[in-house]
């Protein structure tokens, strides 16, 4: 496969153009700080949703503790930048790595569990991380971690979102990604066909956690301030809702879902207490009328290789 084919060049040019456009609009002040905040939030949510989609949508492992990986990333990044004054790139990588290690550690024992039980175990894991963060004074405890330098900007968000989407997209269309998808379709059959299911489940968990950690790092270094309650059960639910809203097993779905739900919750912010009620009703209506999500199983067509149609009979 050539790296410099027409498709890749067009995508690269489009991405660079988008980046420059965004940069110019922000520098000239056309995009004000409020709009910029929302763009950053959308970016963080895209990374979170795409990474959770790898675990839940593609590998079929139902987890309710994704916010815990984000929390680990956020706190790691805060410590690296605020306490050790190291550059942001070290913090991002450190955050991803720590979250990934946590992902492997929690993944190896719990991934033997199936369906709802895995969801409950990861929920418990998420709560444990939150309670630990509440009680460790070094990272601020319940008061929260203050004075984190603000490094996250348009450039970092853009680069990280593109990096996440391309990497996870390529992973899914690789040999390993297909193994992950086969686990979702039928775990027993996959195992019978020689797929090492534990290996791929842990791999998906580790990669998903890595990017959730990066999202946490971007979050911590944008808002100066993090507190354990931002990464509770509800945050995990929020991410899961984005994934289901956009469509399980669809990367463009996750991107659209992240944009749509961030915009919806921003608009709802102005109506106060009724906000969550309307959010709940919207959620409910989507589940009743469009349970497959906005994009169903749509894939990034333009990012996908044109395949020779030798796998037609795979379903029949």
């Amino acid at each position: 496969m050539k790296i410099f084919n027409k498709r890749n060049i067009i995508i690269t040019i489009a991405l660079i153009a988008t980046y420059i456009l965004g940069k110019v609009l922000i520098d000239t002040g056309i995009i004000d700080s409020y709009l910029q905040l929302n763009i950053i939030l959308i970016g963080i949510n895209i990374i979170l949703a795409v990474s959770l989609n790898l675990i839940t949508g593609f590998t079929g492992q139902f987890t309710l503790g994704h916010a815990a990986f984000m929390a680990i990333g956020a706190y790691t990044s805060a410590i690296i930048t605020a306490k050790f004054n190291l550059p942001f790139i070290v913090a991002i990588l450190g955050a991803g790595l720590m979250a990934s290690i946590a992902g492997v550690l929690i993944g190896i024992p719990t991934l033997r569990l199936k369906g709802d039980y895995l969801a409950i175990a990861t929920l418990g894991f998420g709560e444990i991380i939150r309670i630990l963060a509440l009680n460790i004074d070094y990272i601020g405890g319940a008061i929260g971690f203050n004075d984190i330098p603000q490094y996250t900007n348009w450039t970092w968000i853009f680069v990280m979102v593109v990096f996440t989407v391309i990497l996870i997209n390529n992973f899914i269309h690789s040999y390993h990604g297909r193994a992950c998808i086969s686990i979702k379709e039928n775990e027993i059959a996959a195992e019978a066909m020689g797929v090492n299911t534990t290996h791929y489940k842990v791999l998906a968990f580790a990669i998903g956690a890595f990017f959730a950690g990066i999202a946490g790092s971007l979050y911590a270094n944008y808002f100066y301030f993090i507190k354990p309650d931002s990464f509770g059960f509800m945050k995990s639910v929020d991410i899961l809702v984005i994934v289901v809203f956009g469509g399980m097993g669809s990367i463009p779905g996750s991107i659209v879902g992240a944009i749509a739900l961030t915009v919806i919750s921003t608009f709802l912010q102005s109506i106060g207490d009724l906000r969550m009620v309307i959010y709940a009703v919207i959620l409910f209506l989507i589940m009743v009328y469009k349970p497959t999500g906005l994009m169903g199983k749509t894939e990034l067509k333009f990012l996908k290789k044109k395949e020779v149609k030798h796998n037609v009979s795979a379903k029949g």
Partner: protein
Amino acid sequence: MEQIIQQLINGVSLGSIYALIALGYTMVYGIINLINFAHGDIYMMGAFVGYAITTFLGLGFIPSLIISMVACSILGMVIEKIAYKPLRNSSRISLLITAISVSLFLQYIMVYFVGPETRTFPNVLESNRITFFDGSVILDTKNIYILVITVILMCTLQYVVRRTKIGKAMRAVALDKEAAELMGINVNKVISYTFAIGSALAGAAGVLVGIYYNTIDPLMGSGPGLKAFVAAVLGGIGLIPGAVFGGFFLGLVETIVSAYGGSVYKDAVAFAILIIILLVKPAGLLGKNVKEKV
């Protein structure tokens, strides 16, 4: 020694409340395989109904308990009809997200109408302190009331499930929905009844919590709700004795952990025990492992 007895008393009271909520979780899970996240909020609604009746109507403890149970069972049936029934054939995950949305809806509709502040539950039971060991162990009559009511409700439930026709139908539906339908059981009706009974127990738990802690607020459901769910899983979800056992077990563990200085970690300990038990015995302490069919 005295401290251990005191903790046992507190643990049993807390545990019986968890057990009551856990029963609702386990019944709903047993019958439609749904982790009903809204269950904790039904319990919150029960506490508020009890509060309204005792404060504004001035009724006593027993009438408020009964009215709150009835109100909650109607609420549970309505929720099932509106929110879960249209999704009965869709995927587990969308059913779960619907449950979460119902939970959010109940929480914030209450915040909207009654405000987010904590309220003081009226003292409907005069508390007589009975002391043992020269006053080092205090047994409040509240604790006795809570335990007695829990035991009565559990025995009634056990009777309903084991001895009555509707209980038999419930067990049949939980075992195999299609086969039960073929045998002439009205599955929709059975599911409705299950929600009604489970929610009534949650309503009773709400009133008991109001009496035990004296405070209620619209977001009180999520914490004990999750905890009760942990209790249901600990004992083996889908099993009624499992939920009771899990509830008491969790209540005791929690009070013992708090008593020995780990009160900030008591939730973490509960979840850690949950994870360990899931790893060792995924079907819960009282559950049997089911081999997966290919």
